[in-house]
């Protein structure tokens, strides 16, 4: 155990360099900064919106509509007394995102039940995701105007009525059923909320697996590049201990790196999705449907992820043996990255459980798919599927470790190499 600890400490020290820590902290600070800026922009965009209005009609009806808009989160900036060109210029120079031009006779048309056009000018000042909300604002303005107009009309014609009941005489009471549980709520909203809450999980899984693999492949390749491997292999420590120490160190440092990255990434995307707040009713519905992770759920996910990491580490360990130096190790990590990408993208854009059989078999054969599948299965309480996935990961890991141990205990650790398009050297040191 003493020898193993000695080696483990060395492996961690080799991987956890000051350069790595500085770069991780820098990335985290950068993500936090970008997230903070985005959050402020999103808050600005979803707050009170300034709408410039040039009201040529200036009738009681048009004034009433504008008053109604003010009640619905719009700051109306009057352009009274200006020509249309002057109003456009003034709006362009100001901070209004939309200019409405209400034509003369607008109020009269409403009285006569005539459809009347109003002119709208949208000012696109940038083309970012947040900046392109102008069209949404415009849509909001028109909806608000139509609501005010129709409500006023209905109130005038049928004073004792509720305009909303007349406009929307059919209302639905929505229920969502998940397996044997039922709760009141909208399926669309629940799906959106669930997706916003779990969007990080595949990203975290992918990053941890890729980071750890990169670490372990690097540690083997660096031993070769720095010519320290031969010495290490002749010291009195079991080869399996060398493999385990390298895998454990890489796993721990990979976990730390991914954790730091994720913290930064979370504050970055947190800024992007800060508008998506869960209503208490929806949260209660999700709880009622069992769509929240319990402690045992997290334990299952953790075990599945742990074995996926171990599989990735074992594959990388074998690939590391093939590498001649650090550079070739970086190329060799690509297959692992690509294999992790398959379940990652499928989990983001499709339901892994509803794929066609051949694709499903392919995805299931990838050991890294199972933590991704576990997330979905946990929500559906398919514990049998989760356990089967973990069992499969354990078997794959055992096979891979046996292969790695055999390689490390044989001549192959020194003789196995990939020759990228190069001819095998005829004269070697013998």
């Amino acid at each position: 155990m003493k020898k193993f600890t000695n080696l483990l400490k060395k492996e961690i020290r080799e991987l956890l360099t000051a350069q790595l820590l500085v770069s991780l902290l820098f990335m985290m600070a950068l993500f936090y900064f970008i997230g903070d800026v985005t959050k402020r922009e999103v808050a600005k965009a979803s707050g009170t919106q300034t709408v410039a209005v040039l009201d040529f009609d200036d009738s009681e009806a048009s004034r009433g509509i504008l008053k109604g808009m003010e009640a619905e989160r719009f700051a109306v900036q009057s352009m009274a007394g200006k020509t249309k060109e002057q109003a456009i210029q003034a709006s362009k120079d100001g901070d209004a995102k939309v200019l409405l031009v209400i034509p003369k006779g607008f109020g009269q048309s409403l009285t006569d039940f005539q459809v009347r056009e109003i002119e709208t000018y949208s000012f696109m000042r940038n083309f970012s995701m947040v900046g392109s909300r102008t069209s949404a604002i415009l849509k909001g303005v028109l909806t608000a105007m139509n609501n005010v107009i129709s409500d006023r009309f209905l109130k005038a014609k049928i004073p004792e009525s509720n305009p909303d009941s007349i406009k929307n005489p059919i209302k639905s009471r929505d229920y969502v059923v998940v397996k044997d549980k039922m709760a009141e709520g909208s399926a669309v909203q629940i799906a959106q909320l669930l997706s916003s809450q779990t969007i990080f999980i595949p990203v975290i899984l992918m990053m941890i697996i890729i980071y750890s693999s990169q670490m372990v492949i690097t540690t083997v390749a660096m031993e070769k590049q720095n010519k320290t491997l031969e010495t290490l292999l002749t010291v009195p420590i079991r080869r399996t201990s060398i493999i385990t120490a390298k895998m454990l160190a890489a796993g721990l440092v990979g976990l730390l790196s991914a954790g730091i990255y994720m913290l930064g990434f979370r504050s970055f995307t947190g800024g992007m999705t800060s508008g998506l707040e869960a209503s208490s009713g929806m949260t209660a519905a999700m709880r009622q449907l069992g769509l929240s992770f319990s402690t045992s759920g997290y334990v299952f996910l953790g075990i599945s992820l742990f074995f996926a990491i171990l599989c990735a580490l074992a594959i990388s360990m074998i690939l590391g043996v093939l590498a001649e130096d650090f550079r070739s190790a970086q190329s060799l990590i690509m297959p692992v990255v690509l294999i992790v990408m398959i379940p990652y993208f499928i989990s983001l854009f499709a339901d892994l459980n509803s794929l066609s059989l051949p694709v499903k078999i392919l995805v299931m054969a990838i050991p890294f798919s199972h933590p991704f599948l576990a997330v979905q299965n946990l929500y559906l309480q398919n514990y049998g599927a989760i356990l089967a996935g973990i069992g499969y990961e354990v078997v794959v890991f055992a096979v891979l470790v046996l292969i790695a141990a055999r390689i490390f205990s044989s001549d192959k650790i020194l003789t196995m190499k990939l020759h990228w398009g190069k001819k095998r050297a005829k004269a070697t040191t013998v």
Partner: protein
Amino acid sequence: MSVVLTVQDLKKTYGKLTALQGVSFEVHAGEVFALIGPNGAGKTTTLRIAATLLTASSGSIRFLEYDLRKEPDKVRERISYLPEEAGVYKNMKGMQYLRFMADFYAATPAQEKEYVDRAVAITELGDRLKDKVGTYSKGMTRKILLARALMTKPVLAILDEPTSGLDVLNALDVRAMIRRYAKEGTAVLLSSHNMLEIEYLSDRLALVDKGLILDAGTPGELKDKHKAANLEEVFRSSLR
């Protein structure tokens, strides 16, 4: 002198390439046994098999009472190996490296201290041991590696080209060190293609070429046998 290493009819092939065609020799306690020969003769392969890095295709190799193929872990506790192109963990300080290596062999903290103290004395690097190994010259690196190989006073030290890349003064220091440890009882199996160095350093030697031992004996015996003035002439004569 007791036999430490017994090599009998050792053969090694890498695919179609035959590196060793049947090598046999013995190394005794307290002697320096050298393998000399040109590049590609099979010296490094022999040393790597003796160091438990490679396994022989056929033949037998025993260290004391242990069969290397069956009990490599036992063997590794009592031998040390210095590869020709060995490196050191560059992020470690010299002292840190010596402690790290000593920890694998020492059973107690007192023993670890003894090994480290011995290594510090061998390196003669003084305060430079507080610096990172990445800042060392080639000579300093080779010295710290040699110190690592000798600090435990192994039963058998396997040294592949121990003075490779060293300047004259450093090479002299290293040779003196090897002789001193052999005198204290360590058996040394080394390889070199510097025949003058071997003539000074070795008690016995084997001339190796194309995976075969051409001749073996003390430098004096071989020179007499081949009526040669030095080992280079012995080697040329044995090739004929």
